[in-house]
């Protein structure tokens, strides 16, 4: 187990938000926890190759052999950039679905919604 501290913290956050997802009764809280889950995953991917005095992969110096071991990995960054935008658009759909549910049932409690749908 040779974890970096950032990786360890992001895994802990993942399971905290998992715990929140299990225990939350309100629908809006569930949406917030899915966003927290996504943030934990993004942080985990960005922490790949993290070290002291890390440099951003921008500029002309990155190809310089003196600096190339200190430059952050650009591939996860490019992928996470799209992942963040996708996460927001998915949560936008979630919120509209939540508002539709609230208009129909006048509540956001999962237990009551389940009970009313079962008849």
């Amino acid at each position, binding site marked *: 187990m040779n974890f970096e501290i950032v990786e360890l913290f992001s895994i802990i956050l993942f399971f905290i938000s998992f715990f929140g997802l299990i225990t939350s009764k309100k629908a*809006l809280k569930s949406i917030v926890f899915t966003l927290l889950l996504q943030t934990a995953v993004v942080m985990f991917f960005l922490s790949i190759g993290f070290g002291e005095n890390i440099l951003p992969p921008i500029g002309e110096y990155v190809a310089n052999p003196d600096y190339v071991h200190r*430059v952050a990995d650009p591939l996860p960054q490019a992928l996470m950039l799209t992942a963040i935008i996708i996460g927001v658009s998915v949560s936008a759909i979630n919120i509209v679905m939540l508002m539709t549910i*609230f208009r129909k049932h006048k*509540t956001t409690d999962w237990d009551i919604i389940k009970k009313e749908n079962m008849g």
Partner: protein
Amino acid sequence: MIQVLLVLWLAMAMMIVFERKIAKIIIFFGIFSLITSFCFLLLGSPDVAMAEAAVSVFTTIFFVVCFEKYHNLGVDKTTEPPPKLKVLTFLKTYTLPLVFSGFLFMLFLYFIPEYTVNTYLKTQYIAMFARDVGGENVVTAIYLGYRVYDTLFEALILVVSVIAVSHMSWYEGVSVKDDTDVEIDGTEMAIFTLRIVCPLLLIFGIYLIANGQLTPGGGFQGGVVIATFFICRYLIYDIYDIRIGRIIRIEELVFAVTTLLAVFIVFLGASAYMPANYLTIFQDVYLVLMNALIGMKVACAFFIIFYRYIGIERK
């Protein structure tokens, strides 16, 4: 530095988990996103930090609008929780999930293999990006050159999201005054500030898009900033003079043009036929054009979602 921030980060997450009031959760989530964005900056990824900071504004707005709609639609009939939680019910509701997620965490720590990070792709991209794609920002070079398929997929997801939001939201019959320049009462100070900040936002968004290949920034971040400009415009004038249907058409057209450009230049390898004298100019034009198209696309999508949310639509 980053250790302190991470401890604060986890504390904020715990506060979100154990908070019961929804209004407080929304505000805590905004603070959490801010700390996250600062952590991303310290991890050496200013692009992602900027995207997170710009996007967290929108998530907060969405949650606030949703929370406001609660009260407009009717009283929440859920019975209020008792003011004092009994110890036994607390244990019942929280112990089993806590044990379960703690068990999964331990399982995760136990079974994860010891690995060394493979840096082959990183060295390849850093060595080749200036010749293959151009520009000085490696992240832009990857998402517009090597992995442009992911970017197209992301744009497609945004189109699907806009369609879903406009299909599922409904028209509430909010009365809108025709072309009257009515200002919101009682908030002159905020509106005065917005009037000053508003054009700066537009300039900042255009700057981010135009310099996306040289500095941190790019299509996504600039697009989100431009969308906030239009939202400020709505807040200042409180009128609705932009037709949503037309903007949806623009968005679809921009998506089609983006796909065609990417197919023509990246997949067919058009830069291989360029003479060497004009290659850098060609690459720069491609990067700026692609960033501008993605920025327009993202701005249109967020603008449409916001306008559908506030429920004002002229027939």
